[in-house]
C-alpha cells in the first residue's frame, strides 16, 4: 500500500460467537460490532474469556459456534495466516532467535513484500527503536519488547490489531507512557484496535468504546463515561470503579422513581433505572457524594438524596479525601471528596449527612446479588467481623 493513500478499513463483527472447553463456556454467544478505526477495550476479570475471544478473531482458536466478519466478509473459516488481523500477545512472543529487525520484518517477508528495508526502518522509527535493530529480544527491557511486539504486528497494516494485555507486565509509570504511545500510534495509522485489559483506568482513558465482560458474556458496552456513570448491572457497577449499593423497594414510578430503603427515600430519573420489578438496588458513585456535618444539612439542595451516619475512617489521598461512613443499619458507605473545600474536614466519630443528586443515582436489578463483580478476597475480608 503506498503511503498517504487512506485505505478502507472495515468493521469487525462477531456474530453469536461461542467457545466451549469441555464443561466451561469460555465465550458465550457473543455478538458485537466494533466500528472501523475505533479503539475498543475489552475489560473483565481473569478467566472471563477475553483471550479466547481474541484468539477466535485471530484464527488461533476455532469457535464452537458463531462467525467472525470483517465488513461483509465471513473470515470464520480462514486460517490464522490468511486473516488481515494481527496480535500483540500477552507475553509478546517475540522470536528469540531473530533480532529486532527480523522480528519486525517477519510478516512482510512471509507475504513477499518488496520494500522490506524501508518499511521496517520507518516502523522502528515510529516506535523509537531504530538504534536497537540488531539486538536480540532478550537484550531489551520490558517496555522495549512491548514496542517491538506492537511494531511487528502493526507493520502489516492489518484491518484489526488485537492487543492482549500488552501492558500487563510493565510498571505503572511505563504503563502510562505506553498508553499514550499506543493511543498516538492508533490515531496515526487508523487501524481498529481491540485492546484487552483488566486495568479499568487504562480501558477508560484509551478507548472509544469499552465492553465489560463477565463469564463469557458482554455485560455492558458503550462510551467509557456512559458505562461508568450509568452501569446497567451490579457487576459493572462494582467492577468498573466503586459503587455504593443499597437494596430497597419501589414506592412510586413515573418520571421520577422513588425507592424506600431502611426508612429513607431515594429518588432517581426513571431513565436511570433498569430494574424491572419492585425490588431495586439504589446505586451511587463515591465521588458524587457530598459529606456534611449534620448541623449543615440545610446546605444540601432539597431534592438531594441523603443518608445519615457516623464517620468511621478518613484517609487523605492527596487529590481527594476518602470517607467511610457507617449507616444506622450497619452498611459502610464510601465517599470521595475533592480537597478543594475551604474549612475543616469531617473527622472520625462525627455525625454526618451524605447527599447526592437524583441525577447521579442509578437503579439496578438486585437478582445477581450485591457483591457481584467485587473482588472475592475483599468481600470475604469485609464480611469477616474479626478482620
Amino acid at each position, binding site marked *: 500500500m503506498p503511503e498517504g493513500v487512506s485505505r478502507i478499513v472495515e468493521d469487525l463483527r462477531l456474530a453469536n460467537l461461542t467457545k466451549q472447553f469441555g464443561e466451561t463456556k469460555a465465550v458465550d454467544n457473543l455478538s458485537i460490532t466494533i466500528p472501523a478505526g475505533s479503539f475498543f477495550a475489552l475489560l473483565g476479570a481473569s478467566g472471563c474469556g477475553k483471550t479466547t475471544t481474541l484468539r477466535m478473531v*485471530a*484464527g*488461533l482458536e476455532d469457535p464452537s459456534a458463531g462467525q467472525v466478519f470483517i465488513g461483509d466478509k465471513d473470515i470464520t473459516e480462514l*486460517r*490464522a*495466516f490468511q486473516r488481515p*488481523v*494481527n*496480535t500483540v*500477545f500477552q*507475553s509478546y*512472543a*517475540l*522470536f*528469540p*532467535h531473530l533480532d529486532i529487525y527480523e522480528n519486525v520484518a*517477519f*510478516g512482510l517477508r*512471509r*507475504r513477499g513484500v518488496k520494500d522490506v528495508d524501508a518499511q521496517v526502518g520507518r516502523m522502528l522509527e515510529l516506535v523509537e527503536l531504530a538504534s536497537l535493530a*540488531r*539486538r536480540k529480544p532478550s*537484550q531489551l527491557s520490558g517496555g522495549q519488547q512491548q514496542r517491538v511486539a506492537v511494531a*511487528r*504486528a502493526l507493520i*502489516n497494516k492489518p484491518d484489526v490489531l488485537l492487543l492482549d494485555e500488552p501492558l500487563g507486565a510493565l510498571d505503572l509509570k511505563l504503563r502510562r507512557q505506553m498508553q499514550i504511545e499506543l493511543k498516538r500510534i492508533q490515531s496515526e495509522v487508523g487501524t481498529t484496535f481491540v485492546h484487552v485489559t483488566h486495568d479499568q483506568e487504562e480501558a477508560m482513558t484509551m478507548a472509544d468504546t469499552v465492553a465489560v465482560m463477565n463469564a463469557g458474556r458482554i455485560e455492558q458496552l458503550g462510551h467509557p463515561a456512559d458505562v461508568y456513570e450509568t452501569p446497567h448491572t451490579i457487576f459493572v457497577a462494582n467492577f468498573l470503579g466503586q459503587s455504593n449499593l443499597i437494596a430497597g423497594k419501589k414506592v412510586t414510578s413515573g418520571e421520577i422513581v422513588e425507592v424506600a430503603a431502611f426508612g429513607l427515600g431515594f429518588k432517581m430519573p426513571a431513565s436511570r433505572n433498569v430494574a424491572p420489578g419492585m425490588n431495586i438496588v439504589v446505586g451511587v458513585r463515591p465521588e458524587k457524594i457530598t459529606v456534611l456535618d449534620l448541623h449543615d444539612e440545610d446546605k444540601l439542595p432539597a431534592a438531594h438524596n441523603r443518608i445519615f451516619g457516623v464517620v468511621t475512617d478518613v484517609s487523605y489521598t492527596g487529590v481527594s479525601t476518602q470517607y467511610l461512613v457507617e449507616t444506622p443499619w450497619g452498611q459502610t458507605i464510601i465517599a470521595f471528596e475533592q480537597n478543594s473545600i475551604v474549612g475543616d474536614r469531617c473527622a472520625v466519630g462525627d455525625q454526618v449527612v451524605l447527599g447526592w443528586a437524583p441525577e447521579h443515582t442509578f437503579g439496578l436489578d438486585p437478582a445477581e446479588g450485591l457483591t457481584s463483580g467485587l473482588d472475592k478476597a475483599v468481600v470475604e475480608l469485609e464480611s469477616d467481623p474479626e478482620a
Partner: protein
Amino acid sequence: MRWIRQNVIGAIAILVLLYLFLPIAVVIIFSFNNPVGKYNLSWNEFSLDAWSQICGVPGVCSSFVTSIQIGLITTTFATILGTLIAFALVRYRFRGRSSTNLLIFMPMATPEIVMGSSLLALFLNLSFPLGAVTIMIAHIMFIISFVVVAVKARLQGMDPRLEEAARDLYASPYATFRYVTFPLVLPGIIGAALLGFSLSFDDFIISFFNAGTLVTFPIYIWGAAQRGIPPQVNALASLVFMSALLIVLSAQLVAWRKRRSLATR
C-alpha cells in the same frame, strides 16, 4: 584460616580438573614416545614418529576411517529418524503414544552386552551377513533413543505461542516450521547429532558382537592391546580429542564475537 576458606573451592576445582584431564594428558604425552619393545607404557624418549607416520602401523588408519564412516552414516540416519519421532511424540496425540514414549527408553536402559548379543542372535537367525551394515543397524537403533530424548526436551521447552505468533504473521504451516520451529529446535538436533556420533565412534561392545570380520577403531585397539598398543593409536586419539576441543572452542568464539559486536554497536 581465612586464606584456606577463600581458596578451598579453587583447590578442589583444580583437583577435579586434574582428575578429569590426567588420563587425556597421558594419552597425548605418550603419542610423542618412542617405546622400547611392544608396550607403550613407560617413557623412553621424545619422538615424532607416531605423528609423521600416523598410518605407519597396518590397520590403524583403515579402522579409524571405518569408524568415522560408520559414525557419520549412523548419526545421519539416527538424527533424522529420532527428530521425526520426537516431533510426533510431542506434537500429535495418537494411539500408542505413551507406550512409544516408554519403549524409546529401552535401548538406553538395556545393558549393551545384552543388546549386542541378542542382535547377533537375531542376525544369525536371519542369516544376515555381519559387517558394516549390521553395526550401523545396531548403532542407529540405540542412538535414536538419545536423539529422541534430546530433541523432545528442546521441543517441549519451546513456547507454543511462538508458532502461533508466526501463523498470526502470515506464515503458512511450512513457513512456520522453516523459520520458527526448526531454527529453535536446531541446537537440540545438533547436540543430539554430536552425542550420537561420539556414541557410535566410541562403541565397542555392540560393534564387537556384530562386526563379523570388520575392524572398527575400538575393535582395533582392543586387538592391539593384546600385542602392545602402538603410539599411532595415541596420536589418533589425540587428534579426536583435539577436534572435539576445536568444535567447542569455535562455538565459544562465535558466541563471544556475537556478544562483542553487539556491545560495540
